């Protein structure tokens, strides 16, 4: 698997879509910071009043937007809780995996590697590495923006940041495994894109949530990847807070195994 991983990382570094997707995430953060600065920062509000974005009556309410929000909370709400990160990452993974099938390079790989689950393993590890880089880079960029906007929101303890990023990494990698599974099963860019948007954006989970809630069973969906992002803890307080790790690890194993079995049964 190490050889396949080397191959995947070689291509990942040369893949333009990776940089485009990361750029989109960073651009979204910039937009959020500018909007918040206009709405909540005193200097920004002056500008907002001048351009007619706010009225004098709205100033006080608008300032309270950032009450109780620290830099980690802002990062969560900007990127992960709403599903934007997963949609972007899902599309990035889809492009990466489907290119193997569309270009036909998968034939070169599978003609050499008889153990097909190694291919899935390599892809999941690659996604794990990509997620680690994206999450760390994105969070660092958020810190930088906060510094540039003169500490618009208070800083967060490093332990809390590490705790959050650890489970967020596990969940995003589990979602990556799901996207790999979909791409391997369907070999289709359209299906991969649809999965990234519908699953990453939470459309499927929220529809199911609505449906199951009519039977008072919607609580089960708190254990899905999508809802774990918004319900997961920002800091460690008790063993209960480790639930998101269990959810992430469980889905990561499940989807990796499903992708491996699917690929093993396929003809290339």
């Amino acid at each position, binding site marked *: 698997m190490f050889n396949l991983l080397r191959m995947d990382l*070689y291509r990942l570094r*040369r893949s333009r879509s990776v940089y485009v997707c990361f750029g989109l995430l960073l651009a979204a953060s910039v937009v959020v910071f500018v909007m918040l600065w206009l709405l909540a920062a005193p200097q920004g509000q002056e500008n907002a009043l001048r351009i007619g974005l706010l009225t004098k009556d709205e100033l006080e309410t608008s300032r309270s937007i950032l009450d109780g929000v620290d830099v980690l909370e802002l990062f969560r709400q900007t990127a992960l809780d709403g599903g934007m990160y997963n949609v972007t990452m899902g599309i990035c993974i889809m492009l990466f995996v489907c290119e193997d099938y569309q270009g*036909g390079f998968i034939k070169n790989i599978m003609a050499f*590697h*008889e153990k097909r689950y190694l291919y899935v393993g390599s892809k999941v590890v690659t996604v794990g590495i990509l997620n680690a880089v994206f999450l760390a880079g994105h969070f660092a960029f958020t810190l930088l923006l906060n510094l540039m906007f003169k500490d618009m929101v208070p800083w967060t303890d490093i332990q809390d940041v590490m705790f959050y990023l650890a489970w967020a990494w596990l969940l995003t990698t589990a979602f990556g495994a799901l996207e790999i599974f979909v791409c391997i099963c369907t070999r289709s860019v359209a299906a991969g894109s649809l999965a990234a948007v519908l699953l990453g954006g939470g459309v499927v989970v929220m529809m199911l949530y609505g449906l199951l809630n009519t039977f008072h069973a919607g609580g089960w969906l708190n254990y899905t990847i999508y809802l774990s992002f918004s319900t997961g803890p920002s800091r460690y307080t008790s063993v209960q807070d480790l639930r998101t790790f269990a959810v992430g690890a469980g889905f990561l194993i499940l989807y990796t195994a499903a992708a491996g079995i699917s690929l093993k049964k396929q003809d290339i």
Partner: protein
Amino acid sequence: MDTGKQRTFAVETVRLTKTYGGKTAVNQLQMQVQEGAIYGFIGKNGAGKSTALKMIGGLVHPTKGEVRVFGKPVSQGVIRRRMGVLIEAAGLYQNMTARQNVMMKARCMGLSDERSVDQVLALTGLSDTGKKKVRNFSMGMKQRLGAALALVGNPDLLILDEPINGLDPEGIRQMRQLMLQLRDQGKTILISSHILGELSKISTHYGIIKDGELIEQISQEELNEKCQDYFQVEVENVQRALPAIQEAYTDVQIEVFDSRTIRVYGLKETAGLNGVLAKKQIPVYACGVHSMDLEEYFFDRMEGGSRHV
């Protein structure tokens, strides 16, 4: 050659069968490719060539049967290392250069020496493509790059499915020279192509597949024997001409090709035959010596075999 020892083939399939939803694409294929041979695999579109080659290359799971490469099951990793595969369109990353594509294959195989990458690029004439992306390559360049990928790791067996598709005459000549060069290095090549004339220039053995079944395996020598020269005569009335020829020439083979055409094999002296027909007052429209080539032989076999009298 029977030395008493069991012969090891580069490729041997045992009752290899592939069924897709009740339709049999390959049926009980019993193929033997000798080491060092260039084995031309011939068949019409949809005959099952690509499916058979994919099974041999380990890309498709057989429904039944077994593939043995150098005497061992194709599922073994050590065997995969000895095979290079180019099946259907070359599998390439369009946004990468030729060198980056070959580097990808080298990394996939765990090769760390970049000289082997440069060697295969030089061998396939792609050394000077520089930073040009594959999406801007011509069809021929893509095919050559596909061959380059198959050659990474210096495999002993090459499985090439339609490698000369889309190549210009110069590209075909280069590919032919490459095949012959590789054969001289002792490599075994299993190649399918629709361009039978080209295949006949390089192949040492042939396998003909029809409707998923291997109907014949033949060496070049055997083919030469079967594809002997013949004298073809077009007459007004075959019914009258045939007994006349049979009566005059008892030691030849005679084939009625169609309602006007007779082919005579093994005829040493051709002028006399015209005389025989003239004496019987049978009008002759055309006559001449012909050679049967691989293409004719192939079509003959596709139509159900020879119609020798």
